[in-house]
């Protein structure tokens, strides 16, 4: 065992520096090696605080391992291995480095034991995510990166204020423990985490970043950004009642847009928002089973949505975009990608035997009580909506005939990455018990009980039949190239216009102020110069000569009469 305290997340960060200088052939192996090394470091340690140091009177804990962060860590590092394989299919040194910074920051944040390091590593992950978007060759990606930076900057600011207040309130105690929204410090940190998970009103940053990132970058953002927030909420705010309505709104919002969005990468991001909403809701419920279900569900979400984003990324790599309205001929030109797209879409929809199903069954079990029956119903509907929105729409569009088949299959490295991710989707779906055993609370449910599997088949089958019937009768909308408005329309539209107007007003006010100052200072300078010139001409008879003589005479007289008696 190593004697030094090395957070597993630091290894991808170190590898990021190497990747910048490494040749193309070595970059993907370096990324995968860093993930394997971090996994080894993670699994080789005992639970507990490894070491801590004092910095400026504050206790800094670089590594604290327990069952909660171990589950998330394993999931993220497996995702990094998969993304490393995927990234070998294209050349982008800067994106590789950015992905490692993003992954390293996220994994480091999981394992630190104090708030200061948590905020620092989470900010590093945010920086990595923004860099991933900036490194994308797609149109408008730089602007999307700027928007992401604004969101992440706001999150970091809220974090810093919350931590500062927390330190002030708790006599310098920075160790991670349960926080309360009722305290000001807890409220700031809670608000920061709401941005991180993409809560309602702040959900647009996620789909915006994913839709503008390059194929590998989108998978990385999907895997490493939002789920860190879910972990932090489970760590800081378990059983927080506010999370229940917030998560429920995320489920509804995500399902709505996933069913309607034409850009399938954005639709997948919305679907992930909906699944994240389930996680938030369960954290809010806060029972031991609910918290264990959150962890397992986050684990499967990381891999299933990474697989889906990679499949869609293959299409983007060849066609430049992945819109449902533009998928005609995909089945002919890219049959393997079409197959992986279908498999990963089914996994994300919780189809029995694939990744999300067993953890979704656990989530349903955690919500199966009279008090939370509306949550149970909401959760139950989500797989059907995602099946229609992600699988059926895409599959029907992909198998439309287009002559001739214009695009070739994705590069080998990308197909390797998707197949690896799909393998994990199937493996987790078939044998979920090892994942159940990793969670802090032992989950004894049987996801393959006949009544559960039958209900899920019935749900998905009915949704498919009704949707296909509605398409057959022309009731369902046709796939047409559309771009939908969301919350970003507010800050890209009216708020941006207000900002422009305020900027113009401020510039004009500044100009007027500068002009006025120039006038006043010019006039004052002229008068001062004139006065000085007058002083410099003692021979000129002015009123000041007699006045000076009179003043001197007055002073002499005062001195004479003021003599002491």
């Amino acid at each position, binding site marked *: 065992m190593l004697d030094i305290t090395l957070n597993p997340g630091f290894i991808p960060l170190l590898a990021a520096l190497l990747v910048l200088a490494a040749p193309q052939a070595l970059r993907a192996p370096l990324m995968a090696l860093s993930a394997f090394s971090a996994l080894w470091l993670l699994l080789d340690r005992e639970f507990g605080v490894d070491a801590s140091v004092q910095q400026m009177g504050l206790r800094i804990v670089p590594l604290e391992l327990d069952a909660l962060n171990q589950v998330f860590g394993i999931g993220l590092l497996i995702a990094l291995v998969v993304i490393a394989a995927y990234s070998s299919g294209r050349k982008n040194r800067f994106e590789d480095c950015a992905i490692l910074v993003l992954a390293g920051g996220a994994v480091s944040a999981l394992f630190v034991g104090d708030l200061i390091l948590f905020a620092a590593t989470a900010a590093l992950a945010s920086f990595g995510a923004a860099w991933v978007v900036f490194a994308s060759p797609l149109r408008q990606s730089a602007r999307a990166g700027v928007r992401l930076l604004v969101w992440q900057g706001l999150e970091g600011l809220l974090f810093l204020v919350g931590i500062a207040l927390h330190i002030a309130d708790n006599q310098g105690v920075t160790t991670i423990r349960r926080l309360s929204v009722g305290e000001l410090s807890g409220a700031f940190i809670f608000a920061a985490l709401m941005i991180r998970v993409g809560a309602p009103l702040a959900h647009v940053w996620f789909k915006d970043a994913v839709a503008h990132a390059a194929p590998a970058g989108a998978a990385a953002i999907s895997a490493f950004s939002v789920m860190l927030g879910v972990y932090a909420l489970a760590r800081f705010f378990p059983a927080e009642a506010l999370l229940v309505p917030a998560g429920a709104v995320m489920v509804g919002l995500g399902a709505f847009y996933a069913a309607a969005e034409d850009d399938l990468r954005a639709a997948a991001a919305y679907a992930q928002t909906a699944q994240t909403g389930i996680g938030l809701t369960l954290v809010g419920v806060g029972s031991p089973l609910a918290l264990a279900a959150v962890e397992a569900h986050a684990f499967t979400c990381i891999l299933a949505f990474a697989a889906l984003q990679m499949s869609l990324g293959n299409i983007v790599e060849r066609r430049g975009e992945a819109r449902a309205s533009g998928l005609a001929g995909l*089945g002919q030109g890219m049959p393997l990608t079409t197959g992986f797209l279908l498999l990963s879409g089914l996994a994300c929809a919780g189809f029995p035997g694939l990744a999300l199903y067993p953890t979704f069954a656990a989530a349903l079990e955690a919500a199966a009580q009279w008090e939370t029956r509306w949550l149970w119903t909401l959760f139950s509907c989500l797989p059907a909506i995602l099946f229609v929105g992600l699988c059926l729409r895409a599959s029907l569009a992909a198998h439309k005939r287009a002559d001739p088949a214009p695009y070739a299959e994705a590069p080998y490295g990308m197909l390797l990455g998707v197949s690896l991710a799909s393998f994990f989707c199937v493996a987790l779906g078939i044998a979920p018990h090892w994942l159940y055993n990793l969670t802090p609370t032992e989950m004894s449910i049987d996801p393959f009980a006949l009544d559960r599997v039958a209900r899920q088949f019935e749900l*998905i089958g009915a949704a498919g039949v009704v949707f296909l019937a509605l398409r057959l009768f022309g009731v369902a909308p046709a796939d047409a190239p559309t771009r939908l408005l969301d919350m970003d329309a507010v800050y890209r539209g009216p708020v941006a216009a207000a900002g422009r107007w305020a900027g113009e007003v401020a510039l004009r006010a500044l100009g007027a102020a500068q002009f006025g100052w120039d006038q006043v200072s010019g006039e004052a300078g002229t008068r001062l110069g004139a006065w000085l010139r007058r002083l410099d001409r003692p021979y000129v008879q002015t009123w000041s000569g007699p006045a000076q003589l009179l003043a001197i005479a007055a002073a002499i007289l005062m001195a004479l009469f003021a003599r002491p008696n």
Partner: protein
Amino acid sequence: MRTPDPRPRGGAAGPWLVVCLAALAAGAAFDFGVDHPAAFWIGMRPGAAAALGAGAACFAVIAGHAARTLLRRREHDGGRRARHHP
């Protein structure tokens, strides 16, 4: 502008219909045939999953129409915004 015909012709619609019908039939058969643990409310009763699935599909269709009617981004607006703002 001529709107595309949304009705599926050929392609994957037929196989998907068969798969979904089979899943529905098998699921419903086992759902009604298996002894259930105590259902805590009506949503867990036999057949309720089919109703939820049908409702979810209708929601997806309504969401598609509503989004395109209410939330469709006008291209000329997008262009103007894109020019002026990141």
